């Protein structure tokens, strides 16, 4: 009954607090915890929150993390049919009459005690490989951006399901009185595949579980700022009187509902202070900017967002979703990926190090990756200095760090030409199941009944990948 409930009547204060995306500390937390989690499970939460550095567009594994000397050796030769086996291509290369293998323009080296191969494009990431857990055998079902990214973040290619962060907000609630449980940060002015509200949408969950986008600039959260000509002091005075107007009904039946209306306005007021406070990087010391890179001083950059992610994590935000667009290199890959790597390498590595030095890496999960990989063969014309790669859902690489994961570890393997997974495949639903497991959630039990059916993030699939767990 609860799950399908109508969320309006605000019938009691406790219910109201429980239903509010940003509740009042412990009270809210205890009432938000999904009953499915508390009972009959021996799951021990290893992590409390997720910072997901989503690399939108599909970064090429060949230039970054999946070292394939055999592709280099066969550069320019046709992709053997024995490897492709007639599998589906996109409409962009499906009619191309030749599919020549393309070597990585960038060299690889082994790093850390783990000896992990990383390309020269990612020197900072290479420096922390012993903290990271690579999955080289990711695979997905979708071949075009929209269905693929929707699949990654909602568990279904078709619009309409709640996003990952919404599920966590629904399942675990919040640890902060004054901030949303689920925050979204998008690198500004990037271009590339568009991003849409659905990716942080609540689907059929109540809308307080949707992600709240934090933006650089005047109003970090929409409508946060008082109108021009109304000062903060005046707003306080106005809300006091508004409360008095509401309190005229004190003691009357239904009063608890009005009380929650008052609480709603008080929380809005507190957000007006707490959000600018978290966005204000001016008190961060110089060494932090040295760590994240000078870009971090410029609001809205990926570096600034990484730093902001740490600050939100410190304040107990449950799910911090970053997006960095621009990885869709159908052509001009060498120059394009150099720019992308330059923007993301240092801050991503810095975030992991920063969390570690604060003792937060133990209970924070960091994920770096896109919605699919790229082909080993060239899209468009293959020259010595330029080439492109098409979408490739059959294998790609992402890395993770923190909260209960093995570190200095690589999992899964692709074939010598990097076309198919040959060992330990990890499906998107497996990844989701594993991340939820680390948060103490049985992915089969965190469900919401809608249209007569219990839905979950992993649909009817997903297996926890135990070897990834420390």
């Amino acid at each position, binding site marked *: 009954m609860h799950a399908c409930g109508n969320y309006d009547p605000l*019938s009691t204060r406790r219910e109201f607090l429980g239903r509010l995306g940003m509740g009042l500390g412990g009270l809210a937390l205890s009432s938000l915890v999904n009953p499915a989690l508390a009972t009959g499970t021996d799951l021990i939460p290893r992590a409390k929150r997720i910072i997901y550095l989503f690399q939108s567009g599909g970064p090429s594994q060949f230039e970054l993390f999946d070292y394939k000397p055999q592709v280099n050796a066969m550069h320019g030769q046709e992709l053997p049919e024995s490897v492709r086996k007639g599998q589906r291509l*996109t409409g962009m290369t499906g009619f191309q009459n030749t599919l020549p293998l393309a070597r990585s323009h960038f060299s690889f080296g082994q790093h850390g005690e783990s000896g992990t191969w990383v390309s020269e494009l990612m020197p900072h990431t290479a420096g922390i490989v012993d903290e990271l857990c690579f999955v080289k055998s990711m695979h997905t079902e979708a071949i075009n951006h929209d269905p693929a990214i929707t699949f990654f973040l909602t568990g279904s290619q078709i619009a309409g399901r709640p996003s990952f962060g919404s599920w966590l907000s629904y399942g675990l609630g919040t640890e902060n009185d004054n901030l949303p449980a689920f925050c979204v940060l998008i690198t500004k002015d990037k271009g590339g595949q568009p991003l849409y509200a659905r990716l942080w949408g609540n689907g059929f969950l109540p809308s307080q579980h949707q992600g709240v986008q934090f933006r650089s600039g005047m109003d970090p959260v929409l*409508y946060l700022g008082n109108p021009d000509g109304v000062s903060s002091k005046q707003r306080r005075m106005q809300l006091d009187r*508004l409360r*008095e107007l509401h309190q*005229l009904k004190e003691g009357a039946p239904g009063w608890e509902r009005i009380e929650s209306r008052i609480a709603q306005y008080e929380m809005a007021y507190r957000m007006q202070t707490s959000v600018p406070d978290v966005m204000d990087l001016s008190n961060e010391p110089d060494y932090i900017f040295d760590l994240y890179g000078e870009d971090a001083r410029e609001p809205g950059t990926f570096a600034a967002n990484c730093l902001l992610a740490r600050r939100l994590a410190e304040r107990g935000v449950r799910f911090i979703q970053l997006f960095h667009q621009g990885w869709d290199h159908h052509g001009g890959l060498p120059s394009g990926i150099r720019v992308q790597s330059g923007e993301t390498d240092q801050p991503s590595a810095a975030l992991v190090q920063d969390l570690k030095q604060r003792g937060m890496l133990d209970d924070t999960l960091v994920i770096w990756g896109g919605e699919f990989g790229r082909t080993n063969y060239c899209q468009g014309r293959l020259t010595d200095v330029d080439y492109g790669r098409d979408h490739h859902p059959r294998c790609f690489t992402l890395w993770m760090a923190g909260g209960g994961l093995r570190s200095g570890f690589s999992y899964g393997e692709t074939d010598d030409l990097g076309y198919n997974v040959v060992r330990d495949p990890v499906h998107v639903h497996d990844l989701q199941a594993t991340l939820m497991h680390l948060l103490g959630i049985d992915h089969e039990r965190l469900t919401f009944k809608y*249209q007569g059916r219990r839905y979950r993030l992993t649909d009817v699939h997903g297996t926890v990948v135990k070897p990834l767990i420390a």
Partner: protein
Amino acid sequence: MNRFITGYILIAAAMLMFVGCSRAPEVSFNEQIRPILNERCVNCHGGIRRQGDLSLLFRHEALAAAESGERAVVPLKPAESELLRRVSHTDPKHRMPQDDDPLTPEQIQTLHTWIAEGAQWEDHWAYVTPERPALPGVSDPAWPSEPLDHFILSRLDEEGLSPSPEAECPVLVRRVTLDLVGLPPKPEDVRQICVDGGSYETYVDSLQASPTYGERWAAMWLDLARYADSKGYEKDIGRTIWRYRDWVIQALNDDLPFDQFTIEQLAGDLLPNATESQRIATAFNRNTMTNTEGGTDDEEFRVAAVIDRVNTTWEVWQGTSFACVQCHGHPYDPFTHEEYYEFFTFFNSTADRDLDSEYPTLPLFEEEVADEGSELIEDIAQLEEDIIARVRSHALAEERRAWETTLDQPEIIGRVRLMLQNEVKRVVATPEEQRGDGQQRTLDHIYASVSDDPQLERLRSEKVEKEQVLRTLNAVHTPIMQELPFRRRTHVFERGSFLLKGEPVEPNTPNALPPMPEDAPRNRLGMARWLVSRENPLTARVTVNRFWEQLFGIGLIESLEDFGTQGLERSHPDLLDYLAVSFMEDHSWSVKSFLRSVVISSTYRQSSRVTGELEAKDPRNRLLARGARFRLSAEQIRDQALYVSGLLSPAMFGPSVMPPQPEGLWNNPYDARRWQTSQGNDRYRRGIYTYWRRTVPYPSMATFDSPSREFCVSRRIRTNTPLQALVSLNDPVFIEAAQALAQRMLDSENPLEAGYTYAIGVAPDEKVLDTLGSLYNDAMTHYTEHDDDVTTLTGDQGSAELAGLTVVANAILNLDQFIMKE
């Protein structure tokens, strides 16, 4: 157990007797057995999963031998029924449900009795055509004013509760006005009824006659129709389909009966001599998304659109989550995977195919080219006929037959559009006299396009020329449904994937529901008529339940979208059936007439004031011992603020508008379009005319739970978040409203009283007035000393008074009693 459920069991029992039992069975399948099976068994033994090759969904499955050779259920013979043996097994290794708590002894006994009595299956109530229940007796015959009141009061009698007194007149007037037209009443309307003794019923009639009525109710329908001004998916390019939105508003205002409303939207194009309006109505199903992302397979997304049409039809009219059946048999309800695709066939033969152009569309020409446009369209249609006539002429007969025989050659068939190749092969294989006109036409067209007959060449080029001219004329092109001249072959898609084609299927409706008439056409039109037939058990129930939810905040069955066996419990089963039958028979599907009967009822007119006892006993007001009280919808909150401040534009229809929204939200790199804030009165149009972009919904409305419209939504789940307070306190739209209301106040004799009265409909009491006064004084203290703030808030013509009143108005527009319908 309450009387209605008891009554229901008696009816069910009577039905069972009719089936052949000599005495009434003790056990009801629907009430006692199905819940056990659904809760404890079918997760593993039904629909998707058939472990041990056993399904307990249908009787014939349960009675069949499973993998083990045993039969789970042997009617009349509990001792031979494996089901009983396994649920009562003492060894947990063999006991069912496996690895879970055993059934209770009572449950096992119930199963035992049921099997001993013959193990009859019953249809779920929702799949049985509703009959009109008798009006139940009530304790106070004077209370009911409408038949529906009997059902409400009789239930209250059973619970030992009494209805609340009628709401205070101004509260009731505000309630009914918001409910029927989505706007608050004018203070003079309140006065006319509450002071001067005007008739409530007459007022209701006037509300329903107002054009604003259609705008309010269209908002509900457009969520179901997934109406939006963009195509969806990644690029989410703009789409011109507002004529459909206008059609809905007009149809509601014209009170187009709901059966006709249904038929025109699902199959208006197939009606004889379909009018332009009826063809625009079919845009209902062109609100599906179109994927314009590079490299997508158009067939994949054409199929996705057809799937959406099937699922939407089932959700909107049948309250059934048919989407499950796309991939596998329904996990709980009696629908099979094959039946999904049989129904899919109805929608699978339209001409649209995920093209960027949104083909086919219906043009509406700008006035200065309207004549030229319609002339061209007629000419083109004539040329089309001339071409076919020429192809079929005696002169070309021989050449044409010869061409047909060459169609099996790859190089000839290769020139035919891929989509048509299979159809062409099939037509050629059919003897000429047995071909349908559509089939013949398809072939004729292809021949016409390749023949080098000079006359055909001339007709062709003339047609192309005219089509080119037509394209240059200024027109609004609305995507519509258009049937192909032939039927696409439909297969079952294994696991729902369009790449895995299974057995071919023919159009049909599912077996669990009453069949289509024998002579009905097996196309969308026949299907649409089937939905609104008197026999269809779901359409009327689902529809009246939606209207009920809009008025009372919660449906008689809360899960508007699911009437299946997993749906939530009905609060008043007999009332639901009564309203459904009454909607069809007494109101002849007239929505206005139906809504009128509800809003003039005693139930509806009750005060929403709650007592402590009632709150404790029925916190969610399912029993309706009081009136409804809930937060207004996203559109209503916006419209109301603009209306009471005098800003709301009464303009209706036309392209969607762009009221102010924060900068930088539209950053789609594929799309040069920008949010260009509308000028003049278009800033202040009703929310229903706001440009609805699926991937970037208008933020202030989304904050108040409006959906993205990427797919059909039956229910907006109302929430209450701090972000909403930020909208109504700070959104420039609300600030403009506060400024305008302040100006109205300033122009009044008693500004504070006037402001409150405009907003709430009644004058404030003394305490409220005092507090508003204190707020005003506080604000004045600031503004008399801060000229710069006065100018910023109220402009060059402003004053400290106006600034102070703006702060007061802003507070009034955030009062609980303003945001709520009481």
